[in-house]
């Protein structure tokens, strides 16, 4: 079945006509050319495919596009243009969070999700907030520090 599915993507109204079971990840990357969202496991384990749906963290490799009708989706391409996104990205760059970078867009999205619920998280809360994002390069410590840095620099943003 081919259906027209309308939703909001990075603050723009969009529509796609395709099988509603097509993975949101493939729709974002291939139909909308937004390749910042990555595929690293295809089974919802690693968080590299994370975006925000109505402000909530979701893994797009397991979401059929038909499920996002009428919802607001924000990807890294949308987040990076906001003050909050820039604050997180700068903090990641200054804090040493980025090594190979493949997990990082997902981590930035997870950081935004965390800070939007808890503007001044403790280390434990940060670790819990990124528990669904796997990283093989950093051992997580500097990502955690960078999120803390973002929270400090972003006074009033969240």
């Amino acid at each position, binding site marked *: 079945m081919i259906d027209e599915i309308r939703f909001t993507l990075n603050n723009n109204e969009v529509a796609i006509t395709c099988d509603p079971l097509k993975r949101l990840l493939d729709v974002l990357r291939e139909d909308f050319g937004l390749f910042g969202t990555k595929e690293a496991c295809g089974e*919802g384990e690693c968080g590299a495919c994370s975006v925000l749906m109505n402000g909530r963290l979701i893994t797009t490799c*397991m979401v059929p596009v038909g499920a996002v009708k009428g919802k607001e989706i924000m990807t890294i391409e949308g987040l990076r243009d906001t003050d909050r996104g820039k604050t997180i990205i700068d903090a990641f760059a200054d804090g040493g969070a980025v090594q190979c970078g493949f997990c990082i867009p997902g981590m930035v999205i997870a950081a935004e999700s965390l800070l939007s619920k808890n503007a001044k998280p403790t280390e434990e809360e940060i670790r819990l907030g990124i528990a*669904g994002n796997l990283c093989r390069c950093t051992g997580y410590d500097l990502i955690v520090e960078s999120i803390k840095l973002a929270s400090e620099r972003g006074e009033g943003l969240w």
Partner: protein
Amino acid sequence: MVETSYIPQTLEEALRIRKETGAKPLAGGTDLMVMHRRGTGVIPSFPWPVMIISSLEELKYIRRDGDEIVIGSGTTCHAIEDDPSVPYAVKKAASLMGAESLRNLATIGGNVCNASPKADLPVPLIMMDARVTLVSATGSRTLLLDEFITGPKETVLKDDELLLEVRIPLPEKEYSHVWYRKIGTRKANAISKLSISAAITLDADGFIQDFRSANGASGPKVARSSEVEKLLEGKNVKEIHSVLEQFLDAYDAILSPHAMPTYRRLSTRRMLAHFLTEVATGAQGMIIT
């Protein structure tokens, strides 16, 4: 596979489609989309028609109905985790499922209907004698969750039925002590290797009025036995040590002998012994860790 998919706008429409086509419901998609995936850029392939019901607001609710907490099948783990009226063990199980993203998508209906032996929510639900209401275009029925799930990934859901809600009876008297523990493959974002939910109710003199305990990832379905539980009922909490070994041996017998048997059985034994010993020695507070 060329099968149709649907996005019903109402529950009534969903039931009609289900009756006419047998389309299977897809809620969060966290099990189904992974099970049927075909790789990057390829649409997942299902051997039957699918209907996406994740946006049906009619299935998303948590409310008190008399002496039951009723949770709509489309309610996400996240919503369950956050709601203060949901009993402790169910909230705890929801909060430890997968990771945050999964909890934002996965629903109680999906977790229950998928009926994986490693599923998290059925464990405390079955411990609490939860029931499920199944609806179809022509009627509805309610049965115990423990009877709804019959084996690994097997339920008695009929081809024209949908799971409407899970009904959790609140005990007449609140539990004196509750235990929930999940052992995952790692400290977060983990599939269950073992989960145990247990609860005990004592009267003012320390006699055990009610004891219940359920094990997940320990067999083809959640392991629970009312015969074994009755071994403790009526005993005084101070005498637990005299029946503890007998109870633990009997409990051990309800667990599957396959796959990591030593680990699962010994961990279960230790956890239950710990719980009961804490209770026996006068632990304060409802939640035992």
